[in-house]
Protein backbone atom coordinates (compact mmCIF):
# COMPACT_ATOMS: atom_id res chain seq x y z
CA UNK A 1 0.00 0.00 0.00
CA UNK A 2 2.81 2.34 0.94
CA UNK A 3 4.53 1.56 -2.31
CA UNK A 4 1.48 2.51 -4.36
CA UNK A 5 1.15 5.76 -2.44
CA UNK A 6 4.79 6.56 -3.10
CA UNK A 7 4.37 5.73 -6.77
CA UNK A 8 1.35 8.00 -7.12
CA UNK A 9 3.06 10.81 -5.23
CA UNK A 10 6.04 10.70 -7.52
CA UNK A 11 4.31 10.29 -10.81
CA UNK A 12 0.86 11.87 -10.62
CA UNK A 13 1.99 14.83 -12.70
CA UNK A 14 3.34 12.55 -15.37
CA UNK A 15 0.15 10.51 -15.52
CA UNK A 16 -2.17 13.53 -15.54
CA UNK A 17 -0.21 15.37 -18.19
CA UNK A 18 0.08 12.25 -20.33
CA UNK A 19 -3.72 12.12 -20.49
CA UNK A 20 -3.92 15.82 -21.17
CA UNK A 21 -1.28 15.78 -23.91
CA UNK A 22 -2.84 12.67 -25.43
CA UNK A 23 -6.12 14.55 -25.62
CA UNK A 24 -4.41 17.52 -27.28
CA UNK A 25 -2.87 15.31 -29.96
CA UNK A 26 -6.16 13.50 -30.48
CA UNK A 27 -7.95 16.80 -31.05
CA UNK A 28 -5.30 18.04 -33.49
CA UNK A 29 -5.29 14.73 -35.31
CA UNK A 30 -9.09 14.60 -35.53
CA UNK A 31 -9.22 18.14 -36.84
CA UNK A 32 -6.55 17.76 -39.48
CA UNK A 33 -6.57 14.11 -40.55
CA UNK A 34 -9.25 14.60 -43.28
CA UNK A 35 -7.02 17.29 -44.79
CA UNK A 36 -3.95 15.09 -44.57
CA UNK A 37 -5.82 12.22 -46.25
CA UNK A 38 -7.07 14.60 -48.93
CA UNK A 39 -3.51 15.81 -49.54
CA UNK A 40 -2.36 12.23 -50.04
CA UNK A 41 -5.19 11.50 -52.49
CA UNK A 42 -4.50 14.73 -54.37
CA UNK A 43 -0.86 13.83 -54.67
CA UNK A 44 -1.65 10.33 -55.87
CA UNK A 45 -4.05 11.70 -58.48
CA UNK A 46 -1.54 14.30 -59.61
CA UNK A 47 1.24 11.74 -59.99
CA UNK A 48 -0.93 9.17 -61.75
CA UNK A 49 -2.37 11.80 -64.05
CA UNK A 50 1.17 12.69 -65.10
CA UNK A 51 1.90 9.02 -65.81
CA UNK A 52 -1.30 8.44 -67.79
CA UNK A 53 -1.94 11.74 -69.53
CA UNK A 54 -5.04 10.48 -71.36
CA UNK A 55 -6.82 9.61 -68.14
CA UNK A 56 -9.39 12.05 -66.88
CA UNK A 57 -10.36 10.37 -63.64
CA UNK A 58 -9.58 7.30 -61.60
CA UNK A 59 -11.98 4.76 -60.19
CA UNK A 60 -10.99 2.40 -57.43
CA UNK A 61 -11.97 -1.12 -58.50
CA UNK A 62 -14.22 -3.17 -56.22
CA UNK A 63 -12.36 -6.44 -56.58
CA UNK A 64 -9.92 -7.17 -53.84
CA UNK A 65 -6.36 -7.69 -54.98
CA UNK A 66 -3.94 -9.12 -52.51
CA UNK A 67 -0.28 -9.68 -53.15
CA UNK A 68 2.32 -11.68 -51.33
CA UNK A 69 5.30 -9.79 -50.03
CA UNK A 70 8.60 -11.17 -48.85
CA UNK A 71 8.46 -13.54 -45.87
CA UNK A 72 4.95 -14.70 -46.71
CA UNK A 73 3.21 -11.50 -45.62
CA UNK A 74 0.13 -10.56 -47.61
CA UNK A 75 -1.04 -7.07 -48.35
CA UNK A 76 -4.17 -5.64 -49.93
CA UNK A 77 -3.44 -3.39 -52.88
CA UNK A 78 -5.65 -0.61 -54.13
CA UNK A 79 -5.93 -0.76 -57.92
CA UNK A 80 -7.37 2.19 -59.81
CA UNK A 81 -8.86 2.12 -63.27
CA UNK A 82 -7.94 5.14 -65.35
CA UNK A 83 -10.82 6.32 -67.52
CA UNK A 84 -10.60 8.75 -70.41
CA UNK A 85 -13.13 11.39 -71.47
CA UNK A 86 -14.90 8.90 -73.70
CA UNK A 87 -15.35 6.52 -70.74
CA UNK A 88 -12.76 4.13 -72.09
CA UNK A 89 -10.23 2.38 -69.95
CA UNK A 90 -6.79 3.82 -70.75
CA UNK A 91 -4.76 2.12 -68.08
CA UNK A 92 -4.45 0.96 -64.51
CA UNK A 93 -2.54 2.29 -61.57
CA UNK A 94 -1.76 0.88 -58.18
CA UNK A 95 0.33 1.61 -55.11
CA UNK A 96 3.19 -0.66 -54.19
CA UNK A 97 5.64 -0.52 -51.35
CA UNK A 98 8.79 -2.30 -50.27
CA UNK A 99 11.95 -1.94 -48.29
CA UNK A 100 14.45 0.55 -49.66
CA UNK A 101 17.97 1.33 -48.50
CA UNK A 102 16.97 3.07 -45.27
CA UNK A 103 13.22 3.07 -45.10
CA UNK A 104 10.12 1.92 -46.90
CA UNK A 105 9.72 3.12 -50.49
CA UNK A 106 6.16 3.76 -51.62
CA UNK A 107 5.55 3.88 -55.33
CA UNK A 108 2.62 4.52 -57.60
CA UNK A 109 2.88 2.41 -60.73
CA UNK A 110 0.86 2.87 -63.89
CA UNK A 111 0.43 0.28 -66.65
CA UNK A 112 -1.38 0.34 -69.98
CA UNK A 113 -4.90 -1.03 -70.40
CA UNK A 114 -3.85 -4.58 -71.33
CA UNK A 115 -1.20 -4.87 -68.65
CA UNK A 116 1.37 -5.31 -71.41
CA UNK A 117 3.75 -2.47 -70.68
CA UNK A 118 4.51 -0.15 -67.84
CA UNK A 119 3.38 3.43 -68.34
CA UNK A 120 5.69 4.67 -65.62
CA UNK A 121 6.08 5.02 -61.89
CA UNK A 122 6.58 7.77 -59.38
CA UNK A 123 7.70 7.91 -55.79
CA UNK A 124 5.00 8.66 -53.23
CA UNK A 125 7.23 8.47 -50.19
CA UNK A 126 10.83 7.51 -49.62
CA UNK A 127 13.72 8.22 -47.34
CA UNK A 128 16.69 7.37 -49.50
CA UNK A 129 20.11 9.00 -49.12
CA UNK A 130 20.06 12.52 -50.58
CA UNK A 131 22.32 12.80 -53.59
CA UNK A 132 22.41 9.04 -54.18
CA UNK A 133 19.35 6.90 -53.48
CA UNK A 134 16.90 9.75 -53.87
CA UNK A 135 17.82 9.91 -57.54
CA UNK A 136 15.09 7.28 -58.00
CA UNK A 137 12.76 10.30 -58.07
CA UNK A 138 14.49 11.91 -61.07
CA UNK A 139 12.61 11.78 -64.39
CA UNK A 140 15.63 10.74 -66.44
CA UNK A 141 15.98 7.56 -64.41
CA UNK A 142 12.25 6.91 -64.13
CA UNK A 143 11.79 7.35 -67.88
CA UNK A 144 13.48 4.04 -68.66
CA UNK A 145 10.49 2.29 -67.06
CA UNK A 146 7.96 4.07 -69.27
CA UNK A 147 7.13 1.63 -72.02
CA UNK A 148 9.10 -1.26 -70.55
CA UNK A 149 7.36 -4.64 -70.81
CA UNK A 150 5.53 -5.98 -67.78
CA UNK A 151 7.69 -9.13 -67.69
CA UNK A 152 10.46 -9.52 -65.14
CA UNK A 153 12.62 -6.38 -65.17
CA UNK A 154 16.34 -6.87 -64.79
CA UNK A 155 18.79 -4.51 -63.13
CA UNK A 156 22.10 -4.01 -64.94
CA UNK A 157 25.11 -1.95 -63.87
CA UNK A 158 25.92 -0.44 -67.27
CA UNK A 159 23.83 0.19 -70.31
CA UNK A 160 21.86 2.79 -72.17
CA UNK A 161 19.32 4.60 -70.02
CA UNK A 162 17.47 5.79 -73.10
CA UNK A 163 16.85 2.30 -74.48
CA UNK A 164 13.44 1.09 -73.38
CA UNK A 165 13.50 -2.63 -72.61
CA UNK A 166 13.35 -4.93 -69.63
CA UNK A 167 16.90 -3.97 -68.65
CA UNK A 168 17.00 -1.20 -66.09
CA UNK A 169 20.29 0.63 -65.60
CA UNK A 170 21.10 1.08 -61.92
CA UNK A 171 21.96 4.48 -60.48
CA UNK A 172 25.68 4.49 -59.80
CA UNK A 173 26.27 4.67 -56.06
CA UNK A 174 22.71 3.65 -55.31
CA UNK A 175 22.45 0.03 -56.40
CA UNK A 176 20.40 -0.92 -53.35
CA UNK A 177 17.79 1.76 -53.99
CA UNK A 178 17.59 0.93 -57.70
CA UNK A 179 17.27 -2.74 -56.90
CA UNK A 180 14.53 -2.01 -54.37
CA UNK A 181 12.45 -0.15 -56.96
CA UNK A 182 12.84 -2.90 -59.56
CA UNK A 183 11.97 -5.52 -56.95
CA UNK A 184 8.86 -3.69 -55.79
CA UNK A 185 7.61 -3.29 -59.36
CA UNK A 186 8.44 -6.86 -60.38
CA UNK A 187 6.86 -8.37 -57.32
CA UNK A 188 3.62 -6.42 -57.43
CA UNK A 189 3.03 -6.18 -61.15
CA UNK A 190 3.13 -9.90 -62.01
CA UNK A 191 0.93 -10.87 -59.07
CA UNK A 192 -1.61 -8.15 -59.77
CA UNK A 193 -1.70 -9.02 -63.44
CA UNK A 194 -2.36 -12.70 -62.66
CA UNK A 195 -5.15 -11.90 -60.24
CA UNK A 196 -6.76 -9.40 -62.57
CA UNK A 197 -6.70 -11.98 -65.35
CA UNK A 198 -8.25 -14.58 -63.05
CA UNK A 199 -11.00 -12.16 -62.10
CA UNK A 200 -11.64 -11.26 -65.73
CA UNK A 201 -10.81 -7.59 -65.40
CA UNK A 202 -8.31 -7.77 -68.24
CA UNK A 203 -7.89 -10.18 -71.12
CA UNK A 204 -5.33 -12.93 -70.67
CA UNK A 205 -3.34 -11.70 -73.63
CA UNK A 206 -4.15 -14.58 -75.96
Amino acid at each position, binding site marked *: MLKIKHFIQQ*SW*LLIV*SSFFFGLLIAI*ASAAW*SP*RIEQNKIDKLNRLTAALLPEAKHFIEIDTEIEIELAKGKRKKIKVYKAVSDADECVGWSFNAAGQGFQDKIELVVAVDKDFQSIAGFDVLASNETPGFGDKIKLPNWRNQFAGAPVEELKLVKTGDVKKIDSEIVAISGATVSSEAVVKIINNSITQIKKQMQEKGLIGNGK
Partner: protein
Amino acid sequence: MANDTKVAAGLYKQTLLAGLWRENPVFRLLLGMCPTLAVTAAVKPALTMGLSVIFVLLCSNIVVSLMRNLLKPHLRILMFTLTIATFVTIADLFLKAFTPVMSETLGPYVPLIIVNCIIICRAEACASKNNLIVSIIDALGMGVGFTLTLCVLAGIRELLSTGEIFEVPVMPDAFVPWVAMSMPVGAFITLGLLLGLVNIISKKKRKT
Protein backbone atom coordinates in the same frame (compact mmCIF):
# COMPACT_ATOMS: atom_id res chain seq x y z
CA MET B 1 8.71 49.77 -6.95
CA ALA B 2 9.83 51.78 -9.97
CA ASN B 3 13.30 50.40 -9.47
CA ASP B 4 11.91 46.86 -9.49
CA THR B 5 10.22 47.27 -12.86
CA LYS B 6 13.38 48.79 -14.24
CA VAL B 7 15.41 45.78 -13.11
CA ALA B 8 12.78 43.44 -14.55
CA ALA B 9 12.75 45.28 -17.88
CA GLY B 10 16.53 45.07 -18.03
CA LEU B 11 16.37 41.33 -17.33
CA TYR B 12 13.78 40.80 -20.08
CA LYS B 13 15.87 42.73 -22.58
CA GLN B 14 18.98 40.79 -21.62
CA THR B 15 17.13 37.45 -21.95
CA LEU B 16 15.81 38.40 -25.37
CA LEU B 17 19.19 39.56 -26.65
CA ALA B 18 20.97 36.50 -25.24
CA GLY B 19 19.25 34.21 -27.71
CA LEU B 20 19.86 36.51 -30.64
CA TRP B 21 23.59 37.04 -30.19
CA ARG B 22 25.41 36.46 -26.88
CA GLU B 23 24.06 32.93 -26.42
CA ASN B 24 22.89 32.25 -29.96
CA PRO B 25 21.95 28.57 -29.96
CA VAL B 26 23.80 27.72 -33.16
CA PHE B 27 26.82 30.03 -33.17
CA ARG B 28 27.57 30.27 -29.46
CA LEU B 29 26.03 27.23 -27.77
CA LEU B 30 26.52 24.92 -30.79
CA LEU B 31 23.21 23.22 -30.09
CA GLY B 32 20.76 21.79 -32.59
CA MET B 33 23.43 21.01 -35.16
CA CYS B 34 21.39 18.28 -36.86
CA PRO B 35 18.66 20.50 -38.36
CA THR B 36 21.23 23.28 -38.86
CA LEU B 37 23.22 21.08 -41.21
CA ALA B 38 20.38 19.09 -42.71
CA VAL B 39 17.62 21.50 -43.70
CA THR B 40 19.60 24.57 -44.74
CA ALA B 41 19.97 23.73 -48.43
CA ALA B 42 17.30 26.32 -49.23
CA VAL B 43 15.68 29.18 -47.34
CA LYS B 44 12.09 27.93 -47.47
CA PRO B 45 12.60 24.65 -45.57
CA ALA B 46 14.97 26.44 -43.17
CA LEU B 47 12.32 29.04 -42.40
CA THR B 48 9.63 26.36 -41.93
CA MET B 49 11.96 24.49 -39.60
CA GLY B 50 12.73 27.66 -37.65
CA LEU B 51 9.06 28.55 -37.23
CA SER B 52 8.23 25.01 -36.08
CA VAL B 53 11.04 25.22 -33.52
CA ILE B 54 9.77 28.61 -32.29
CA PHE B 55 6.29 27.13 -31.83
CA VAL B 56 7.53 24.05 -29.98
CA LEU B 57 10.01 26.03 -27.87
CA LEU B 58 7.38 28.58 -26.89
CA CYS B 59 4.77 25.97 -25.94
CA SER B 60 7.21 23.75 -24.06
CA ASN B 61 8.71 26.69 -22.16
CA ILE B 62 5.23 27.87 -21.14
CA VAL B 63 4.15 24.43 -19.95
CA VAL B 64 7.41 23.65 -18.16
CA SER B 65 7.46 27.06 -16.50
CA LEU B 66 3.89 26.61 -15.27
CA MET B 67 4.60 23.21 -13.76
CA ARG B 68 8.13 23.98 -12.52
CA ASN B 69 7.13 23.83 -8.84
CA LEU B 70 5.46 20.44 -9.27
CA LEU B 71 8.37 18.75 -11.01
CA LYS B 72 10.10 15.86 -9.28
CA PRO B 73 13.83 16.24 -9.91
CA HIS B 74 14.43 12.68 -11.12
CA LEU B 75 11.39 12.71 -13.41
CA ARG B 76 11.93 16.13 -14.94
CA ILE B 77 13.66 15.04 -18.18
CA LEU B 78 10.79 12.62 -18.77
CA MET B 79 8.31 15.46 -18.33
CA PHE B 80 10.28 17.72 -20.69
CA THR B 81 10.42 15.09 -23.39
CA LEU B 82 6.73 14.32 -23.02
CA THR B 83 5.83 18.00 -23.33
CA ILE B 84 8.12 18.54 -26.31
CA ALA B 85 6.95 15.39 -28.09
CA THR B 86 3.32 16.51 -27.80
CA PHE B 87 3.91 19.87 -29.43
CA VAL B 88 6.21 18.45 -32.08
CA THR B 89 3.51 15.95 -33.06
CA ILE B 90 1.01 18.78 -33.33
CA ALA B 91 3.44 20.84 -35.45
CA ASP B 92 4.10 17.81 -37.63
CA LEU B 93 0.37 17.22 -38.19
CA PHE B 94 -0.09 20.90 -38.97
CA LEU B 95 2.67 20.88 -41.60
CA LYS B 96 1.29 17.68 -43.14
CA ALA B 97 -2.18 19.20 -43.38
CA PHE B 98 -1.36 22.68 -44.61
CA THR B 99 2.01 22.55 -46.37
CA PRO B 100 2.38 18.95 -47.59
CA VAL B 101 5.27 19.85 -49.89
CA MET B 102 7.32 21.40 -47.10
CA SER B 103 6.45 18.52 -44.80
CA GLU B 104 7.88 16.14 -47.40
CA THR B 105 11.04 18.21 -47.92
CA LEU B 106 11.72 18.31 -44.19
CA GLY B 107 10.88 14.63 -43.89
CA PRO B 108 12.11 13.07 -40.65
CA TYR B 109 13.62 16.32 -39.40
CA VAL B 110 10.27 17.57 -38.08
CA PRO B 111 9.74 14.62 -35.70
CA LEU B 112 13.43 14.94 -34.83
CA ILE B 113 12.72 18.34 -33.22
CA ILE B 114 11.74 16.20 -30.20
CA VAL B 115 15.40 15.50 -29.56
CA ASN B 116 16.59 18.98 -30.53
CA CYS B 117 18.88 19.92 -27.65
CA ILE B 118 17.99 23.62 -27.81
CA ILE B 119 14.50 22.90 -26.58
CA ILE B 120 15.53 20.51 -23.79
CA CYS B 121 18.33 22.92 -22.86
CA ARG B 122 15.91 25.85 -22.54
CA ALA B 123 13.43 23.76 -20.55
CA GLU B 124 16.18 22.68 -18.18
CA ALA B 125 18.21 25.88 -17.97
CA CYS B 126 15.51 28.50 -18.15
CA ALA B 127 11.86 27.44 -18.00
CA SER B 128 12.21 25.09 -15.00
CA LYS B 129 13.84 27.86 -12.94
CA ASN B 130 12.14 31.07 -14.08
CA ASN B 131 8.67 32.58 -14.12
CA LEU B 132 6.32 32.55 -17.09
CA ILE B 133 7.26 35.91 -18.60
CA VAL B 134 11.01 35.27 -18.55
CA SER B 135 10.42 31.80 -20.04
CA ILE B 136 8.30 33.19 -22.88
CA ILE B 137 10.85 35.89 -23.68
CA ASP B 138 13.66 33.36 -23.53
CA ALA B 139 11.79 31.03 -25.91
CA LEU B 140 11.20 33.88 -28.36
CA GLY B 141 14.81 35.06 -28.20
CA MET B 142 16.26 31.59 -28.64
CA GLY B 143 13.72 30.59 -31.28
CA VAL B 144 14.16 33.73 -33.35
CA GLY B 145 17.93 33.47 -32.95
CA PHE B 146 17.84 29.88 -34.20
CA THR B 147 15.55 30.77 -37.12
CA LEU B 148 17.67 33.73 -38.20
CA THR B 149 20.85 31.67 -38.07
CA LEU B 150 19.25 28.91 -40.12
CA CYS B 151 18.02 31.44 -42.67
CA VAL B 152 21.44 33.10 -42.99
CA LEU B 153 23.08 29.72 -43.51
CA ALA B 154 20.38 28.62 -45.95
CA GLY B 155 20.52 31.94 -47.79
CA ILE B 156 24.24 31.60 -48.45
CA ARG B 157 23.91 27.97 -49.50
CA GLU B 158 20.87 28.49 -51.73
CA LEU B 159 22.47 31.53 -53.39
CA LEU B 160 25.68 29.68 -54.18
CA SER B 161 24.14 26.34 -55.12
CA THR B 162 21.31 27.58 -57.35
CA GLY B 163 21.77 31.35 -57.76
CA GLU B 164 18.34 31.86 -56.21
CA ILE B 165 17.02 33.15 -52.92
CA PHE B 166 13.55 32.07 -51.83
CA GLU B 167 13.33 30.40 -55.25
CA VAL B 168 13.70 33.79 -56.97
CA PRO B 169 16.74 34.00 -59.29
CA VAL B 170 19.01 36.84 -58.20
CA MET B 171 22.38 36.01 -59.72
CA PRO B 172 23.47 37.17 -63.21
CA ASP B 173 23.22 34.62 -66.02
CA ALA B 174 26.98 34.12 -66.10
CA PHE B 175 26.88 32.65 -62.57
CA VAL B 176 27.88 28.99 -62.42
CA PRO B 177 26.02 27.18 -59.59
CA TRP B 178 28.11 25.34 -57.01
CA VAL B 179 26.17 22.13 -56.65
CA ALA B 180 28.42 21.09 -53.76
CA MET B 181 26.88 23.84 -51.62
CA SER B 182 23.52 22.07 -51.55
CA MET B 183 25.16 18.85 -50.36
CA PRO B 184 26.27 18.09 -46.79
CA VAL B 185 29.80 19.28 -47.56
CA GLY B 186 28.42 22.76 -48.32
CA ALA B 187 26.62 22.80 -44.97
CA PHE B 188 29.79 21.99 -43.04
CA ILE B 189 31.93 24.52 -44.91
CA THR B 190 29.38 27.34 -44.59
CA LEU B 191 28.77 26.63 -40.91
CA GLY B 192 32.51 26.50 -40.21
CA LEU B 193 33.22 29.79 -41.95
CA LEU B 194 30.28 31.52 -40.26
CA LEU B 195 31.37 30.20 -36.84
CA GLY B 196 34.85 31.58 -37.45
CA LEU B 197 33.41 34.92 -38.51
CA VAL B 198 31.20 35.13 -35.40
CA ASN B 199 34.21 34.30 -33.22
CA ILE B 200 36.27 37.08 -34.80
CA ILE B 201 33.46 39.61 -34.35
CA SER B 202 32.83 38.71 -30.73
CA LYS B 203 36.57 38.77 -29.92
CA LYS B 204 36.86 42.27 -31.37
CA LYS B 205 33.78 43.34 -29.43
CA ARG B 206 35.28 42.07 -26.18
CA LYS B 207 38.49 44.04 -26.71
CA THR B 208 36.75 47.36 -27.25
